[in-house]
């Protein structure tokens, strides 16, 4: 059975574990990963929502950065939401507080929509889904530039909020906070491929 690891350094880890377990319906094992050696044992990874400056710092001090990069380069599917999207980006616009891993060819902007009072829910048109998807944006980042290899999956206004580059699926919103499992299904399909 496939094992999916949710990076458990900080953030809404248990929500991701539960959402993926529901979506996988017994076809995959979902575990938190926070120690060296655990990433290698997983066939897919989730970088959850949380505070990107904190997760970035903990990633370095836990010595997991290289393992995570190796997993991405070896083609393992990675679902990166919100803070996770910040982490896998190539470049963070106008902000030196997070050192991104440079795994995906995107330039992002942190807190692109403003403080918490501007956080929102929206019915998104997501490429590949036939009905709108209710997405939850919390102090969300946005993708402001995408490279040639990157496929844009959804936008809010001009801002790109979902994108895919080969094995990397990056979202500015939180599919783990709603019941709709369609995004997690897309991710599970990437694992089958």
């Amino acid at each position, binding site marked *: 059975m496939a094992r999916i690891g949710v990076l*458990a*350094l*900080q*953030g*809404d*880890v*248990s*929500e991701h574990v539960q959402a993926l377990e529901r979506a996988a319906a017994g076809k995959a094992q979902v575990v938190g990963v*926070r120690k060296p050696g655990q990433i290698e044992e997983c066939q897919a990874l989730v970088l959850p*929502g*949380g*505070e990107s*400056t*904190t997760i970035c*710092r*903990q990633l370095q*001090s*836990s010595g997991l950065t290289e393992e995570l990069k190796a997993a991405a380069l070896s083609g393992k599917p990675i679902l990166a939401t*919100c*803070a996770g999207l910040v982490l896998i980006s190539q470049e963070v616009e106008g*902000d030196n*507080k997070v050192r991104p891993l440079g795994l995906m060819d995107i330039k992002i902007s*942190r*807190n692109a929509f*403003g*403080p*918490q*009072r*501007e*956080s*929102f*829910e*929206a*019915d*998104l*048109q997501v490429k590949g889904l036939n009905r709108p998807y209710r997405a*939850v944006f*919390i*102090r969300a980042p946005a993708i402001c530039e995408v490279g040639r290899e990157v496929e844009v999956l*959804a*936008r*809010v*206004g001009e801002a790109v909020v979902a994108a895919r580059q080969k094995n990397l699926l990056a979202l500015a919103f*939180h599919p783990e*906070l*709603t019941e709709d499992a369609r995004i997690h299904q897309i991710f599970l399909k990437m694992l089958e491929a």
Partner: protein
Amino acid sequence: MELENLRFGTELLKRGFAKMQKGGVIMDVTTPEQAVIAEEAGAVAVMALHAVPADIRKMGGVARMADPAIIEAIIEAVTIPVMAKARIGHFVEAQILEALGVDMVDESEVLTPADEFHIEKAKFTIPFVCGARNLGEACRRIKEGAAMIRTKGEAGTGDVSQAVLHMRMILGQIRSLKGMDDLQLLKVAREIEADLDLVKECARMQRLPVVNFAAGGVATPADAALMMQLGADGVFVGSGIFKSESPAAMAVAIVEAVHHYDDASFLANISKGLGAAMKGLDAATIPEAEALQNRGW
């Protein structure tokens, strides 16, 4: 994508914001410089105050919301979320904090209460965190719209005993609901003056339906790890950092302790050579009338 189809300030957004703080440390700060130290240490958020609880306790008098100029300067200085405290029941202080762009309001017993009623938190766009000593208090605050609960502990003492007491109380009460039938749950709900649906939800989930942090008296990495092992989702540190001998080192160590709370040899390493923790005050020596935890009901 039509921008007018966006919905703001929903319960999901408020509770979701709190969930993003899980596994993290939220630090009290009184200046932009302290806020930067907190951010660099890996804090998930900062709490903007005019004085840390230990000083509020010393100064006496009426404790109010911080100067908006300080809060604005702190918002400017960091990219992590900024929270700020309003007095219990003082909904206008909360309105002002929302207008300033604060990410979350702490309706806090550390400040002097302004009303016998707590703020109607569901009416706000931004989320609130509230203190609680037991399950009844926690449920009443959640019913009013709190998106996050923290133990009250005894703020400004550096004595973790009261946070331990409150965390054990809340989690123990939830455990005791397991296996009860509807009539028994109704009886408990009446006894603790809590909403029945919330009590049922706690019984089913075997936890609070919102994020539950520890607060009040956390002063060392060991204190923070203790609260995590007891079942806290994360930790607030008030006076414990900037009243210690080396705030930057203490801040980093407490963040690390929350991440590695179950690894004793790691905790031993990061606890070395941090200098003196805050001096502190034995919570048992505080006269009943001066205990901050008894504010709010």
